[in-house]
């Protein structure tokens, strides 16, 4: 290996919620040449690691100190500030951000509001779950409910749910039965051993019928639900069932009723057998935001500090407050690319302070933009896998300011 080449092993990828921590990053001349073991999505997330961090105040390049002073001034002047956490932050940065929200009496929210349906369902009912490694060890029946992880969670099946050998699945895939449930256009994996089709309009009813079947009740003998009944019987006969659904299916939020029905089906299956519901979550340490919000405030997202203490406002949520004109300034932290469209639109007319990777190019044109590195590439700390397993981050490059550091400096200025 030449002197200009270096390698960092056991790096955690935050390209999706799988948080694969077996990546070897090969650097050439301080650029990422290769992210070994990473999938295409992961390789794209790492990129070449180069950054030209900028600091801008009202559109002009400015010294860091000036930007922090101006950020503090704008936030102090705000009547009703929003603190919004996007993706690609370490838990350490998230902890600083919640502290700022507390100090500012702000509305505090994160990209996890996109996974609200599943989070709220779990708050109403609880959940029967497992860490991903336990799915690998135990699951002999895996049901993908209207989701194919191949595109958005590419290594999910090779690392956790299907292929690998485990304690009770010594032959990997051959020790398991994979069943795809196609809910209209939301299709399960193409290589499943069996498929069940559910019309989107029947999804809730099918889940209800399945739960009844698992509980030994007969809910219907309608032809339409025969395959659902059969599927429920098959699941009940498994030794350890994994039910996999997508918690962040994209622009349209998941259906709250379906999210709850999946929870209660998985719970009910623990009478005849064992079952864990796996809710897939996206990358950039989203689950970390829920965890940090919860331990510091008691609520996983949509926390309003306006009364001087945390209150929970999952409805209407930050987007609605923006749309209603309630918010007069915002601090946006993390990668702007992960900010959902309605949020970015709502931020555009506001005075915003942005701290995160490439925020100087954000579509919502921050008044103060402080570019930082990306957690996991340029910044260390901790991140959570989608199943809440904490993993250390191993920065492979240094140079850009860190989000946690910038937030600490801002806190000092705000006396927080």
């Amino acid at each position, binding site marked *: 290996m030449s002197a200009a080449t270096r390698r960092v092993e*056991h790096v955690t990828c935050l390209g999706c919620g799988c948080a694969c921590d077996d990546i070897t990053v090969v650097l050439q001349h301080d650029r990422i040449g290769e992210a070994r073991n990473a999938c295409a999505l992961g390789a794209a997330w790492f990129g070449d690691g180069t950054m030209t961090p900028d600091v801008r105040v009202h559109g002009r390049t400015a010294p860091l100190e000036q930007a922090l002073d101006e950020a503090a001034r704008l936030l102090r002047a705000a009547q009703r500030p929003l603190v919004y956490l996007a993706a690609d932050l370490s838990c350490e940065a998230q902890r600083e951000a919640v502290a700022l929200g507390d100090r500012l009496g702000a509305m505090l929210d994160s990209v996890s509001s996109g996974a609200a349906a599943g989070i709220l369902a779990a708050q109403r009912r609880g959940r029967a*779950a497992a860490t991903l490694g336990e799915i690998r060890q135990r699951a002999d029946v895996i049901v993908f409910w209207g989701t194919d992880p191949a595109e958005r969670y590419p290594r999910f099946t090779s690392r956790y749910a299907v292929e690998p050998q485990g304690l009770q699945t010594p032959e990997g895939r051959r020790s398991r039965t994979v069943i795809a449930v196609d809910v209209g256009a939301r299709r399960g994996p193409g290589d499943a051993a069996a498929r069940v089709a559910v019309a989107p309009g029947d999804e809730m009813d099918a889940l209800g019928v399945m739960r009844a079947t698992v509980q030994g009740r007969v809910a219907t003998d309608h032809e339409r639900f025969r395959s659902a009944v059969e599927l429920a019987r098959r699941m009940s006969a498994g030794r350890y069932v994994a039910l996999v659904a997508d918690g962040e299916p994209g622009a349209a939020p998941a259906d709250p009723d379906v999210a709850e029905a999946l929870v209660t089906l998985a719970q009910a299956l623990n009478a005849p057998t064992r079952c864990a519901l796996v809710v897939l979550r996206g990358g950039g340490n989203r689950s970390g935001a829920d965890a940090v919000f919860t331990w510091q405030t008691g609520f996983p997202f949509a926390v309003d500090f306006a009364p001087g203490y945390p209150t929970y406002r999952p409805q209407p949520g930050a987007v609605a407050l923006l749309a209603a004109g309630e918010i007069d300034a915002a601090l946006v932290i993390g990668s702007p690319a992960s900010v959902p469209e309605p949020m970015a639109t709502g931020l555009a007319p506001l005075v915003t302070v942005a701290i995160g990777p490439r925020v100087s190019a954000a579509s919502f044109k921050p008044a103060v933009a402080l570019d930082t590195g990306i957690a996991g590439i340029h910044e260390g700390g*901790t991140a959570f896998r989608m199943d809440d397993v904490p993993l250390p981050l191993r920065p492979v490059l240094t140079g850009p300011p860190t989000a946690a550091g910038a937030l600490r400096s801002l806190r000092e200025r705000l*006396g927080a």
Partner: protein
Amino acid sequence: MSAASRLRISGGTVYDPANGVDGEVRDVCIEGDRIVVELPSNVPRLDARGMIVMPGGVDIHAHIAGSSVNQGRRLLPEEHAADPVPAPRLADGAIARSGTGGTIPSTFTTGYRYAGLGYTTAMEAAVAPLAARHAHAELDDTPIIDAGCFVLLGNDDYLLRQLVAGELARVRQYVAWLLGATRAYAIKIVNPGGIARWKSGGAERNVGGIDDPVGSSSVTARKILEVLAGAANTLELPHPVHIHCNNLGQPGNVATTLQSMQALAGQRAHFTHLQFHSYGGERGKGWKSAARDVIEHVNAHPEISADVGQVMFGPATTLTADAPVEHLLYTSTGRKWVNVDSELETGCGIVPYAYREQAAVAALQWAVGLELFLLARDPWRVVLSTDHPNGGSFLSYPQLIRLLMDRTYRDEQLKRVNQKMFAGSALLDGLAREYTLSEIAIITRAGPARLLGLTTKGHLGAGADADVTIYADHPDRAQMFATPRHVIKGGTIVVEEGQLRRAPAGRRLAVRPEYDAAVTKDLKRFFQDYACVSFENYGAEPVS
């Protein structure tokens, strides 16, 4: 107060049972973060005349930080909404944090409330090794109290494999390595073998007795207990194995509890939340108290210690690695239920709950706990806990203290509860015992500190940590213990005139036993074959 500062707590009535001081009027001197024998007469004084001075409280067993605690928090938005906590106003404009309470408060609130109760040390009693990094991050956000973690062992696949292979020497190395890697303080065993069975998905969903085979005939709860207790004692850990027995909460579990104690005869071992393991009766046929049988065994065996795990009427959240028990509770109550199987290691189950005076089982549990306290002969070995938040919040400790100190109050309570299952309970015989202040000082600080091997905690002798709680001598002991006048933590006055005024960071209590590096070679192979995290990323140590 800066590190070099000095303070004389003067004229208080001091209870320092570890040093044989039982209600004597004397001064306590602090220099920096330590207790010292004497100070010049001109140093600042804190006038404690007429007040009661004790070492800071030490909680030997609570669930306050980490993955399962946070799962529980996430499950309780209603409780948090009902108990908002504005940031306290601290001296010198120092930054304080707002939060929420309920049975599982937010981290900052947890630290403030423990300090407000006069407690300065608490042990987080169930940390899954895989999630140790999370537990430490939460403790970093839990101010004031010094805290340590008990790391969960006894259902982990690596251990069970070593038992099958008869590699007992390697178990010791593994345990030593794991304690260091997770920055833990002690070994916690929860339902040995039972969680492994629950996760395996077989027809046997739990362990019924300590000789049931778990996967292999060479693995039983008995074997797990013996080997881990032996490892802890050989490694000379400050606290022995901390054991949550099989069959928690089941009628008739007294048999398992006594067998577990006998299995470890002659070895140091701590049996936790003993109340939940002291029931007679039979499944399907009802429950009764077996507190007398259990406590007589403890009384006669000085190598054994216990905390009670008292149930207090009111809201609670049951939260344990003992996942099969929580499934039973879910099935019988229909409440919300969380289960998380943790890969290769352990489990987690959570059900929010409420103990009602009129519910026969809850009333029996309440009575069993009190019997254990009142029949215990050695307060140094049978100490106070509610298994927070399982039997009730730590905020209910003052009420519990009053039940122990005030027979009239206790008898009034007794009249109000459902006594349907009280046949054979010693409580009906009219137990007359009233704990003295000195005994309370033992079961809430001196005893737990000694059992934990925390030599600078739980007493006020020279060299001890300057953790001191000063109470007004109120005749209502519940009120007295709920609202200390002053609390000093590590030499800093954190509670002043009943108000939280300072919130310094707490310290982490951890052990780091030596181990033979050969074990890590074997562990790496195991990780390669089965784990879903890299060996190098496991544990709670900072990475390069």
